[in-house]
Structure formats: C-alpha cells, structure tokens
C-alpha cells in the first residue's frame, strides 16, 4: 500500500516516459488526424517531443523492436502518389460511341477450381465483408488476399499509402482482378498533406479522379482487371452528401476503361423500393439484416449480395466454371 500521490506520480511519469520513447509513433498519430485544432495541437506537442527523443537516441529501442518484428517502416509517413504511367495529355479521353456493327465476340478466359481466377480485395473497412463473401464462393474464384485498412483511402496517403501498396501487390500476389472499396473515408479537404480545394469542388474531384484513374491504368498495364465497389446508401445525414460524390467519380473512372474495369453499384443494390435506406432486405422471402447499427457497414448477407453482383459483372469478362 502506498499513498495516493505516489500512484499519481508514477502514472504521470510513466505517461511522460512512454511519450518520449514512443515519440515517433505519436508524431505519426498526430500527422494522420483530420485537419483541425486537435491535429495542430498534437503536431505542436509532438514536434519538440520527437526532437528531444531523437537527440537522446530514445527513439532507438522502439525502432529496434519494430525492426525485430518486421515492422520497421511503421512510423514512416509516405505521402507520395506513386503513379508511374504518365497521365493522358489533356482531359481524360471520352468513350467512343459504340458502333452497331456485327462483331465476333472475343473468347473469354476460362477459370476453373484447378485454375482459379485470383482476386485481390483491398480498401477501407468496407472491403472486408465483401472480401470474405468472395472468399466463401470458392471454386473458380480464389481470393488471394483481403486487405482492409480502417479509415484509409486514396485521399489520405499520410494515413496509409495505398499507391505504394498497389505498386507492390501485383508482383507479390499475382492477381487477375483487383476489387477495391475506397472512398468512405476520403471526404477530406486535403489529400496526403496537399490542399486541393474543399471536398467536392472541381479541383478536388479532378485530383481524386486522377488518382482512381491512375490506379486503374497502372493495374491494367499489369494485365489486372479492376472492380470498383461503389459506396452503399448510408443511414443518417453524415455520409449522404459525400458517398454520391465518390460514387460518381468511381463510376466515371470505370466507364473510361470499359474493357478493363467495372463499377459495382452497391447504393442501389442495398436501398429499398423507394430508393431509401433500409437495414433489412428480403432475401429468398426472408427478411435479412443487411447493415450494421452504424448504418454504413455491411452484414455478411450484404457481403454475399455484393459478391454475387461482382461475380455477375465478372462473368461478362471471364468464364467461371
């Protein structure tokens, strides 16, 4: 038994010591917060903390431990948008109007259980459940990896740099198809530290379109087909404004590459007869819960519905046996 003040002293000093040892991690936490007073304050506090900690080499023990467990680069902040292909000159090329001529359909690639179609599912927290559902399909579909990183996207490279990951993944995973769910957490006024105008403004939309289009072209160049999952109709006003903006961009990007990418409209897949939000949908005559209480995330049943739609759209490109 000790006097209470000793407990307070131990607690305060422990937190201060831990902050000094953890300075690099705290600095990253501060960097990746949404813009505002809290972020500014956190940056102001962690800046001298990092300098002090580095001067005394107190960041070393944590870094050594991170290296030992194979996570040496965790505190690094990489805001580069790695798109190696040059952007098309001028505005994005418009789709040519289809000519109504008799064409011989190109033979579709055939995939079987022995030679499955390799899917890489990636994105924010909304990627996990459809990824799991695609994994359950089995047979001619092989989900090589599901990478669902909470609160990340194509806007905030400082939080997690998907462009770096997208650059590495083809060589590591050899997917035939990349299924992406991005945008739910991208409604920020700045991207990876760069201000590109307020969310939804023409300059913001142009930059986000450049990024999504760049990702599509990079992957297409590696022979990978891209599936963009749209954002579902949300409950409450919070996301009702941002999700349609993101959906328009993703749909537009997919439409620009009709042979090598597709857009899956989850908004209308999960709304009710009146076009409104509903937590339940009738599946095989049975009312089934589709959405989690937050009004955004999917249940497994919704994941199955989305996976079925993804496969339906993929079957226009591939033969799955």
């Amino acid at each position, binding site marked *: 038994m000790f*006097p*209470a003040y*000793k*407990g307070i002293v131990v607690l*305060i000093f*422990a937190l201060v010591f831990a902050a000094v040892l953890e300075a690099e991690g705290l600095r990253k936490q501060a960097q990746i917060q949404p813009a505002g007073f809290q972020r500014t304050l956190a940056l102001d506090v962690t800046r001298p903390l990092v300098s002090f900690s580095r001067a005394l080499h107190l960041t070393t023990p944590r870094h050594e431990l*991170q290296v030992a467990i194979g996570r040496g680069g965790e505190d690094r902040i990489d805001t580069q948008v790695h798109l190696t292909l040059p952007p098309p000159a001028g505005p994005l090329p418009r789709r040519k109007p289809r000519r109504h001529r008799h064409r011989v359909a190109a033979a579709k690639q055939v995939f079987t259980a022995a030679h499955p179609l390799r899917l890489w599912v990636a994105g924010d927290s909304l990627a996990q459940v459809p990824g799991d559902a695609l994994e359950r399909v089995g047979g001619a579909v092989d989900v090589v990896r*599901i990478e669902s990183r*909470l609160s990340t996207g194509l806007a905030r490279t400082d939080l997690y740099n998907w462009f770096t990951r997208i650059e590495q993944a083809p060589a590591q995973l050899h997917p035939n198809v990349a299924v992406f769910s991005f945008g739910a957490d991208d409604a920020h006024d700045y991207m990876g530290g760069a201000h590109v105008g307020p969310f939804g403004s023409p300059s913001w939309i142009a930059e986000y379109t450049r990024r999504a289009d760049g990702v599509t072209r990079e992957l297409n160049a590696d022979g990978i087909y891209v599936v963009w999952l749209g954002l579902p109709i949300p409950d409450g006003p919070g996301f009702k404004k941002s999700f349609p903006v993101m959906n328009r961009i993703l749909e537009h990007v997919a439409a620009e590459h009709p042979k090598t990418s597709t857009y899956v409209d989850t908004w209308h897949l999960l709304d009710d007869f009146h076009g409104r939000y509903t937590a339940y949908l009738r599946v095989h005559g049975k*009312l089934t819960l589709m959405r989690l209480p937050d009004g955004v995330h999917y249940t497994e049943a919704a994941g199955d519905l989305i996976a079925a739609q993804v496969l339906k759209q993929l079957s226009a490109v591939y033969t799955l046996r």
Partner: protein
Amino acid sequence: MLFPTVTFAVFFAIVLPVSWTLMRTPRAWRVFIIVASYVFYGWWDWHFVFLLAASTVVNHVLAVAIYRAGEVRTRKALLALAVAFDLGLLAYFKYTNFFLSSADNVFGTSWLTNVTLPVGVSFYTFMAISYVVDTYRGGLAPTSFGRFAVFQAFFPHLVAGPIVRASELLPQLETPRDPRRVDTSRAFFLIVSGLFLKVVIANHLSTHIVDNVFAAPDSHSSLEVLIAVYGYAVQIFADFCGYTNIAIGVALLLGFEFPQNFASPYTAVSLQDFWRRWHMTLSRWLRDYLYIPLGGNRKGRILTYRNLMLTMVLGGLWHGAAWTFVAWGTIHGIGLAIERAIGWRPVTRAQQWFGRVLTFHVVCFAWIFFRADTFSRAGQVIERLFTGWGQSSPLVTTSVVLAIVVGIVTQYIRPTAITSLLTGFQRLPVLAQAACVAVALVVINTLGPTGVAPFIYFRF
C-alpha cells in the same frame, strides 16, 4: 472512450489527481466524478447520456418508494414497475429487431425499425436491477441520489463491467477513500496485464486467424479451423479479462475496490467450476436474481434442471439478440445438467486433468456458436474441423500458436508468483516504477497491431 487510447490516457491523467484533490469534499467529488463519467460515456454518442441519466433517476425514485412503502403489495407493485422499466429498456434497445424480424419471418408482418444499441446498457441496467431488488429484499437502504448516480455511472465499470453490487460499492462511497493506503502496485499490474491481454493477445489472434476463418471456414484447412476455435477461446478471454483488469486497476488507483471478474477460467475442472471463474460478476448476478428466485436446486431434480437451463439460456440471450447465443447458453445448460446428474466431482489428479481438458473443449465447442453469425456458419466451422485435413495452413503461424499458448499458460501462473513480482515492484523507487510501466506500455503498443479494435463485450 476506449481504455487503450491516448485520449483515455490524457483523460485519466486529469481525472486521477483531481479526484484525490476533491476526495475530502464528498459532494464536490461526486459532482466531478459524475461529470467525468458522463464525458467518458458521451464520447461515443452523447445522446445516450440522457438514457443513462433517465435510468438513474427512475431507479432511484422507485428504490426510495419501495423502501418507504409500508404494504407488501405496494412494494411488490413498485418492484415490478422498476424491473419492468429496466427490462423494457433492455428489450427495446437490444431485442426489438430480433423479435420483430423473427415475427416477420413467421407471420409476414413488416414492423421493422432501426434501433441503435447504446454501449454498456446491459451492464448498468443489471446493476440498477440489483439495487432495486436488494432494496425490496430489505438488504439495502437506498442511498442519496448523488451516490446512486456515481454507483451506476462510475466510468471504470460503466461500459463492460464488472457488474458491481450496490452492497460492494455504495459503502465505499459513504466515506472518503483513504489517500494514505492505495494498492498502486496491484493497480499498475492489472492495467498493464489488461493492456497486454487486449492489445497484444486478443487483437493479434483476431486479426491473424479468428476473423478470417470464421468469415469463410470452407476456404481454410481443418488445422486452421481448429486453431481458430482455440484462438477464439483465448481471444475472448484476453479481450474481456483484459478490459476488466484495466477497469479494476483504474478503480484501484481512484481508491475503489471492484470484485474480481475472472479467475483462470481455462483451468476449470468442470463447467460448474468454469462458471465460478468466468465473468464471475455476471454468474453470481444470474444465480442471485434468476436461478435462486426460480427455486434453484430446492424444488427437486426436474425443476433444478429446468432452472439451470432457463438461467443459462437467458444468460445466453443477455449477450445478444440471436439464436446462436441461445444455442451457446443451451450447450452450457445441458452440460451443467449432465454434470449434476452424474455427480461429476473430480478428486484425483488424473480426474482433474481429464476434467480440465474436457471442460476446455466443451467450452470451445460452445464458443463456436457464440462467435458464428448464423447456425449455418457454425455448422460449416464444425464440418470443416473434419473435412479439410492435409491441406496447407498458412494462417497457423508461430506467433498465432505462441499467442494461444501464452493466453492459456498464464492462467496456470500461481498467485504467489504474482505476489512476489508485486513485492519486487513495490520496493523500487517511484521513478523506477514509472520507467517499468512506461517500458511495458511502449512494448505492448509496439507489439500490438495498428489501430484499436473495440472490445467484444461492448456490444453486449
């Protein structure tokens, strides 16, 4: 507010010194701790602060009315009103959609509505019920409104327990805590061990094997499914025990003693023993406010089995509105009934080890239903345990196996070993103690996965 976050660290670094400063003026302390607890609770969704406040007001008013009422009939009616209010609250927020969707699928109605579950409602409602029932039984005189508000909203236990009895916490609120005698060593040990269990063990198992396997069991080998089932048993223990350890440690630093909630549950030699060691504050709540009022084991064999089954099934439903939870409770109820029927009392060392292994596997089998979202998914997991041997098992890694082994082996550590560790810690100078805690915090944070996963028991 989640315990393993910088936000909570800052919050507690402010609350702890202010709480001890105000301790000598109880009224000011109560106001401060209520405000702090409501801030802690409102951090998720401030709307539900009003629900907590309403529950406090209604239960206090009815408890006082029960205490003052002279006639037995009036007291009974008031008790029924209080319990109906509390269960009504639970029923509305927790079970509305469950019952309506079940009714819809049977009768073809369309009464569905979207109800959001407030965090911790099951915990603080059970505490309120125990308060009014104890008042009705005459074991408790209602306290002042301020003390009751602290009792119900005290932030260390507010969102996921332990379910503290009024008779345990209210006497501690009657007199200011002694600032000369605080068990700081045990408090820091509990906080650090709780963080280790949650951030390192539970989060690692969840993200590296359990979630993947339970999402698509057919895509994984039998070995992966088996390790995932063991992994979930360790994950849920580490997650929930981790939370309550932190809660008990935080309360200790504030000068309050909470009851123990876990006592090495996977060393249990029988299911009866398991329930004496797992979520102990819920077990005794169910025993005292459900099993015994139903008649307990005093009304013959058949009724004892009925009471056991009812208690376990309702205990299952308390965890969530799904038939899979009912199945989980039923498995435990059947197991307890069988143990009682055959008079299972392991005495010899061999019997005890047999009992430990068997109990652990029955508990793991029941966890399959607890974790799976549907019966068909639970069925797939069980089927896959037998049909996918010989396939590659990339999810069964050294770190996963190590996390499971650590999660189980630590339950066999003798209390004397922990006592000597605490004695050694106590002998250190204050700055050395702080350095030890700091190093532990940094190691835990570095070993844990990125981001903070919510605690499993938050949704109950």
